[in-house]
């Protein structure tokens, strides 16, 4: 007498949001308190923004080439004098980098922008036609704006992942017991071979660097288990790109004129310091955090000591040490570039901060996660890099963003080593006898540029946070 039970079919979820009015009601005017808040907010914005818009846009001077354009026109109600910014825009962007060489900077930034995109928003570029489109666009742009030779550099750079992926390895080349050692040995050999032969054929310029790049390309062949397009792309981004950028910025090889770091400045310098700082501080920070949580007492003590020491001193003193005191620690006649020293200083300084952020995250990972990984046979480094750190990093994205933003803004302190970043150039511009009295414009402009970059970072961090957050909580 039992009945047949037929499950109901699933219905689609009803739509709850009904139009912009419904949205506004729900979000802005749902209660009297909310309404008051909304109105207050709107009037505050109005009160703040109107004068700003007047000063910055309506009353501002946009055309002209000299100081007179601003002073003659602005009789009693002077707006901003953007001419001041306009005539030294190049200076703000590139610092003292020689004018004819500035394309090198642009080129390097176009390269990195297009190369990093698929890493930054992997979901968007998951479809391969978008990848192709990206590469095609990049190459077209480069051909159009930079000419043939840069194109010849960029083409293999962008196409390599696709081409190399065809020959990607499913297995390791060398089946030995110590792939890393073998890989290192092989790369050293390749490096020597390439650089010696290049030197023999073309002479000195860039020989060692070419050798180095060859070695870096060879290394993963030996050390990695599988090579896929992704592996190649990371390799190009983390190994080859820095080399390309180095040669573009510094020159002195491949027919590029040497531009010493002394001439770097402006936004360019800001981005170089911030970019390398972030890229290097992050891994060091992770290692420090792991070290601080390690069971080995010496390593833990060292990490704690380092972190606490660094947190106790201002970055400016670190840079001061790096720039003027550091030579004292080296034997006579030995020295290396001041900017490099500053970069190292910045990297280690922020590494300590990032380590603390990550340590916080590590503390919140439940013990069960470690145990589960261990029970499955994961070894320490694998466990950390695949199971624990991904969870940790996702958890502390806001904190990491905080540090990256601080770092970007702290690049200003390279003034200590006598280099002028964006803000430094702006300050120096204030002392130009021909353009006295445009403090506001200089600062507003510098602030705006900083804000744009920082805002981009902070939005991106938000994007990551949401992306990883909704997934599992």
């Amino acid at each position, binding site marked *: 007498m039992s*009945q047949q039970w037929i499950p109901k079919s*699933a*219905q689609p979820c009803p739509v709850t949001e009904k139009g912009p009015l419904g949205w506004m009601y729900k979000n802005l005017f749902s209660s009297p308190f909310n309404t008051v808040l909304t109105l207050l907010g709107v009037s505050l914005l109005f009160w703040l923004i109107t004068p700003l818009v007047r000063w910055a846009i309506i009353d501002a001077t946009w055309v002209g080439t000299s100081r007179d354009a601003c002073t003659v026109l602005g009789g009693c109600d002077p707006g901003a004098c953007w001419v001041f910014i306009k005539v030294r825009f190049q200076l703000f962007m590139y610092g003292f980098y020689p004018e004819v060489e500035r394309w090198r900077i642009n080129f390097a930034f176009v390269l990195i922008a297009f190369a990093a995109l698929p890493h930054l928003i992997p979901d968007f570029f998951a479809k391969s036609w978008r990848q192709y489109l990206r590469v095609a666009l990049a190459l077209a742009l480069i051909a159009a704006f930079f000419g043939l030779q840069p194109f010849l550099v960029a083409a293999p750079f962008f196409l390599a992942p696709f081409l190399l992926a065809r020959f990607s390895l499913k297995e390791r080349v060398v089946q030995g017991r110590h792939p890393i050692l073998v890989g290192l040995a092989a790369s050293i050999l390749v490096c020597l071979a390439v650089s010696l032969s290049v030197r023999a054929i073309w002479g000195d310029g860039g020989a060692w660097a070419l050798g180095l790049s060859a070695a870096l390309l060879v290394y993963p062949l030996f050390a990695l288990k599988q090579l896929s397009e992704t592996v190649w792309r990371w390799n190009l981004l983390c190994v080859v790109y820095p080399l390309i950028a180095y040669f573009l910025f510094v020159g002195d090889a491949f027919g590029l004129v040497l531009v010493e770091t002394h001439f770097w400045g402006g936004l360019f310098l800001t981005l170089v310091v911030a970019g390398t700082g972030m890229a290097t501080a992050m891994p060091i920070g992770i290692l420090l955090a792991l070290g601080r949580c390690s069971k080995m007492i010496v390593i833990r003590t060292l990490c704690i000591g380092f972190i606490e020491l660094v947190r106790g001193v201002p970055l400016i003193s670190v840079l001061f040490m790096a720039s003027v005191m550091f030579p004292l620690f080296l034997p006579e006649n030995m020295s290396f570039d001041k900017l490099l020293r500053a970069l190292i200083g910045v990297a280690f300084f922020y590494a300590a901060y990032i380590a603390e952020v990550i340590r916080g995250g590590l503390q919140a990972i439940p013990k069960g996660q470690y145990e589960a990984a261990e029970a499955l046979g994961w070894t320490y480094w694998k466990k950390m890099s695949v199971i624990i750190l991904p969870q940790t990093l996702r958890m502390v994205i806001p904190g990491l963003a905080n540090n990256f933003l601080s770092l970007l803004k702290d690049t200003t302190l390279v003034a200590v080593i006598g280099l002028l970043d964006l803000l430094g150039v702006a300050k120096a511009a204030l002392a130009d006898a021909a353009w006295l009295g445009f403090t506001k414009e200089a600062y507003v402009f510098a602030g705006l540029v900083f804000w744009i970059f920082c805002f981009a970072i902070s939005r991106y961090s938000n994007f990551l946070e949401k992306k990883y957050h909704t997934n599992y909580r």
Partner: protein
Amino acid sequence: MVTEQKEVTADEDFIVISGLNKWYGDFHVLKDVNLRVKKGEKLVICGPSGSGKSTLIRCVNRLEQHQEGRIIINGMELNNDVKRIDRIRQEVGMVFQNFNLFPHMTVLENLTSSPVWIRKMPLKEAEELAYHYLERVKIPELAHKYPMQCSGGQQQRVAIARCLCMNPQVMLLDEPTSALDPEMIKEVLDVITDLAGSGMTMLCVTHEMGFARTVADRIVFMDQGEIVEQNDPESFFSNPQFDRTKLFLSQIISHNFS
């Protein structure tokens, strides 16, 4: 207690769920669920894994928002009114499937903090109460340990005791005996039936059919987000109406006696 503001006078029905629909994204978890629970009734919800049992009782507590349908508890409808939700929650206790003990408090603090902060009970009294329940579930010696230092079954008992300490009118139990050994199940059962005698309403999700049979006034069988069948335990076990229920029960029987 919550007496004012009765909107719907539903005779003695303490909990009324009507036309409840819930989606997780596009996934239709609860389909048109209708359920009435009388005051003091013990309801056992069973069904295969993933059938939406936990989701259903979480909806009663407003831990999940439903998209369609109404849930009325003690005459008050669950809606966006925060005050009301607060009041309802004070009267509706819940034991979670994965316990959710507060890891930064000792077992005793886990038990006393809610009576002290919410019911404004003097700490002394709250501690006495806590020890009382800890003794009932046989773990008074763990009072000063942290949850992470307790075994699975011990944690589960702490979770039950924590809920009892608030002396709620309704208890929602999500598999309250999953980590317990048969001996312990009996103890817990005793505690719960004691309370049942005192007129507490209970919604209990469980896979322990023995437990269900002993405790329940009525058994609700769910599958794929629907209520397939509900009946008193005797009829449910001896005379299931639907083939789905039969299938389910046959597995238990064969399993228990294999």
